[in-house]
């Protein structure tokens, strides 16, 4: 589905991503690494938020190098950004509606999709009329995930979905991701490696702009470097 080869990317003169190869098929893939490793930059390059300097990005065999963000969304790539990027002055309903309204393959099925999303996050159904900006961080994260799902994506990208959430909600979010991976490809960046390893099939470790480890979830769990640096064992 998603295929990245030799990607280089950065800001100004500073190169952040230094030649990354990464693939996501019909599976759930984790992207791990410390703060500043370049996870968000890499995702920004896929979504057309920052322009790649070199290398190729393909979606279903089509080059999407440097394509504009809204066109990426219309091609079926949904992003749940670290900063959530909701529409704070609008109701949950309107936020979700807009998740589907501009996606050609989703806008006619938005009613069905809304039911599905509400069954994943029942609390949002209770709060449909509430303004998104007045909700707690955890609930806003749920709105952001729900809004992304409204577009009925082929590929769902989540940037640090557990950041700043209380542990019970982190567990809930990863439960949802586990349930979703049957129907949608997932790429998730995380610092909470322990929790996310339960929901992914495969993972990459990104350090200083380079992939240093690539392995299955099982392999990562027993990799001595991952154990020491990310699981604290």
């Amino acid at each position, binding site marked *: 589905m998603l295929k990245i080869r030799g990607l280089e990317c950065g800001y100004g003169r500073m190169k952040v991503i230094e030649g990354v190869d990464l693939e996501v098929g019909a599976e759930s893939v984790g992207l791990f690494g410390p703060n500043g490793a370049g996870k968000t930059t890499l995702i920004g390059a896929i*979504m057309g*938020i920052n322009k790649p300097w070199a290398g190729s990005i393909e979606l279903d065999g089509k080059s999407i190098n440097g394509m*504009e*963000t*809204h066109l990426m*969304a*219309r091609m079926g790539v*949904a*992003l749940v*950004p670290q900063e*959530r*990027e*909701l*529409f*704070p*002055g*609008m109701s949950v309903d*309107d936020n979700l*509606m*807009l*998740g589907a*309204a*501009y*996606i050609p393959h989703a806008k006619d099925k938005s009613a069905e999709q809304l039911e599905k999303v509400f069954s994943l996050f029942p609390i949002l159904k209770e709060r449909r009329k509430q303004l998104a900006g007045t909700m707690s961080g955890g609930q806003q994260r749920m709105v952001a995930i729900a*809004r992304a799902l409204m*577009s009925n994506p082929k590929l769902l990208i989540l940037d640090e979905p557990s950041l700043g959430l209380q542990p019970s909600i982190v567990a809930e979010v990863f439960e949802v991701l586990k349930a979703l991976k049957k129907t949608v490809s997932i790429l998730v960046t995380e610092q909470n490696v322990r929790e996310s390893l339960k929901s992914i099939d495969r993972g990459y470790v990104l350090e200083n702009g380079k992939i240093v480890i690539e392995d299955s979830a099982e392999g990562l769990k027993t990799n001595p470097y991952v154990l020491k640096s990310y699981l604290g064992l």
Partner: protein
Amino acid sequence: MAVKRQKAITWALGLAASVAILLWKPTVLIYGLQTAGLYAAIAIPMGLVLGIVHIVNLAHGEFMMLASYATYFACKALGMDPLFAIIPTALVTAAFGWIIFQITIRRALKAPELNQLILTFGLAIAFTQVINLMFTSQTYKMPLDYVSASMDIGDLTFGTWSFVFIAMAMLFSFGLQFFLTKTTTGKAALAVGQNPRGAAIVGIDVYKIYGLVFALALALVGAMGALFLTKSAIFPQVGSPFTMKSFCLVAMAGVGNIPGILSASILLGVAENFLRAFRGTRGWADIVFFVLIIVVIMSRSLKGRKS
């Protein structure tokens, strides 16, 4: 609780002031509201652009001036009443605004705010001077007899035509409110205004929405340009006070607050006409908006410091 009480006090004071003015100088209130309608109808599109595209358009009044000139010469050539020109002028101004947006403002959206201000200020000067070169600084006016319609209540006589501006202001305000909260495109525009990055990741073409909103605002400005011509003489600089007053009203209302523009306009319109009612203060009426904008900015910054 405190905010609620403060609001109630403001309303009560406003109501008491209007009753007092109505009893003392009834024409002040009537003409004040008419002026308010004109100001609000012109300021609302500026508020729309500021709220969604996040651009202070310093050529706002000058766009209206261009629309008035276009209406004047079209009407004169065709022997048409400006009222019939409202919709065509709106469409032409919208198209013109869209083109100006695409070739100039769009390129400055990522630039620092000062550059954007200089750009729109430059547009304003260019528009004014082009008209000055083409038509000189001579004033033009449409002779229309329905404009001098008046009404008597008791021994009070006042002009009624300008009530049309109040109707326009209401139409713009409610129309935009409906567009922004009930239609998909309107909601997308609101979303772009609140979070352009978020809008792009749900598939909204942010720049297309910016162009659309700018054109929509210019359509309203164009309609007002045609209507303004019924009432006033036009000359190259006629737009610039409206740019300043619109900016004052939008600043008073706060970004994205269209109903707030209505109440701010009433305050400005009534205050100006109040000063005009006395011989000694007549000349001061045109600087009321300066005083208001200073008071607003001071009170905002004081509030900001407290919280």
